[in-house]
């Protein structure tokens, strides 16, 4: 300690004393840190306090907490996660790539699965051929009126029904998860052509804009075809 230096005013000393814990944890900004370090050069009591706080930090840091596996914890949370309506489509902002640099979630689709096999091309072809027939069939079997309480009937340009074809490699649970995510309910089980007919009339997706849902689905890996079931 430099005994020739005058003691700083008491309030300055006390102010610095209250900020020492954050000098210890290294979170002070440069200017503030320099100010405190200058004071420490001439203040023995603050240096002692700093030493005690460092020892406290060291002892606190020695404690260990047994943290459960984060992946398993997330799996438990997933069961409670309600899918939210997709209000905006993904846009390829530069920031998206930063997330891709992180470990990809295990249940996310992989780009490497995007290769379209021959079988999938055949499925698309079948979908295109069968779609007009299904449309006519739906027109014949659907009632020719809608009540005011039938929210689907108010959707502009569509009844809210979509026709979907998925990559054969996409597992049924993944398809089911995707449909739940957009609030779609299967109303036509897939036949040999693998064509799903779904309705956006239940669940969280009921509030979503059908066109936004379609755009979202088209961007999902494993979704081969999305089209509206038109009415006559």
């Amino acid at each position: 300690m430099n005994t020739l230096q005058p003691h700083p005013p008491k309030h300055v000393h006390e102010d610095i004393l209250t900020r020492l814990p954050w000098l210890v944890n290294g979170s002070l900004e440069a200017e503030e840190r320099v100010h405190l370090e200058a004071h420490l050069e001439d203040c023995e009591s603050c240096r002692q306090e700093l030493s005690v706080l460092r020892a406290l930090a060291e002892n606190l840091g020695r404690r260990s907490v047994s943290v459960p596996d984060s992946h398993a914890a997330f799996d438990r949370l997933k069961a409670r996660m309600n899918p939210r309506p997709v209000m905006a489509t993904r846009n390829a902002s530069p920031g998206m790539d930063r997330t891709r640099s992180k470990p990809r979630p295990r249940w996310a689709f992989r780009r490497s699965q995007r290769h379209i096999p021959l079988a999938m091309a055949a499925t698309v072809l079948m979908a295109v051929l069968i779609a007009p027939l299904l449309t006519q069939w739906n027109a014949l079997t659907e009632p020719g009126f809608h009540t005011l309480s039938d929210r689907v009937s108010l959707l502009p340009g569509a009844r809210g029904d979509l026709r979907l074809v998925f990559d054969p490699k996409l597992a049924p649970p993944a398809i089911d998860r995707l449909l739940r995510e957009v609030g779609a309910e299967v109303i036509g089980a897939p036949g040999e052509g693998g064509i799903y007919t779904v309705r956006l009339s239940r669940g969280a997706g009921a509030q979503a804009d059908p066109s936004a849902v379609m755009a979202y689905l088209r961007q999902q890996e494993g979704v081969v075809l999305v089209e509206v079931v038109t009415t006559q």
Partner: protein
Amino acid sequence: MDSELTLIMDGDAGISANALCDDQDQHWIARIREGNAAAFEALYLELHPRLYGFIYRMTRDHGLAEDLVNETLLLVWEKPEGFNGQSKLSTWIFGIAYRKALKAIAKGARASAAVPLDDLSEVLTDRKVSATREVELENLLSVALDSLSDEQRAVIELTFTEGLAYRDIAVILGCPENTVKTRMFHARRKLEPYLVLLRPDRDEYRHEEMT
């Protein structure tokens, strides 16, 4: 809006210039608002260990810590609009976790200290002789931390375990920066009987105290 989502803003509370959210935070919250579950999972995996450690140290209950971490992050998934960009995303989330932990403690969730701690020095007096051992010191630290209020303990943990700036801690606790410093000051005073054990010259210090 859910009170747990409320973020103390600059102004009346005396909070200023806390670190704002960065590009990564903006990216994450934008994707979560879109309903992107993969982005949410990435955020979850990054924050889970820290949140768990913080809540456990506040509540001393593993089961409760696990529940509260998931409740906290579920709230982020369901109501991302609660984040207003005036702090780091992790700061906002720690604030939610802190309030949930406080609520749980108020309901009697935290395991109470084995000894009533009106005066920590009385508890430690008989144990000073063996306090050179690290295990014993850790046990004493646990006892010492139990003597603090929940708010004081939060300041200690967020400062020394999480390494957060007092500005960020003020946001998490929803109080002015000066209140954070005051809580730290009083916590440090309460911990004095324990801190004496950490002094390199503690034998000499005790002798001076006795005389």
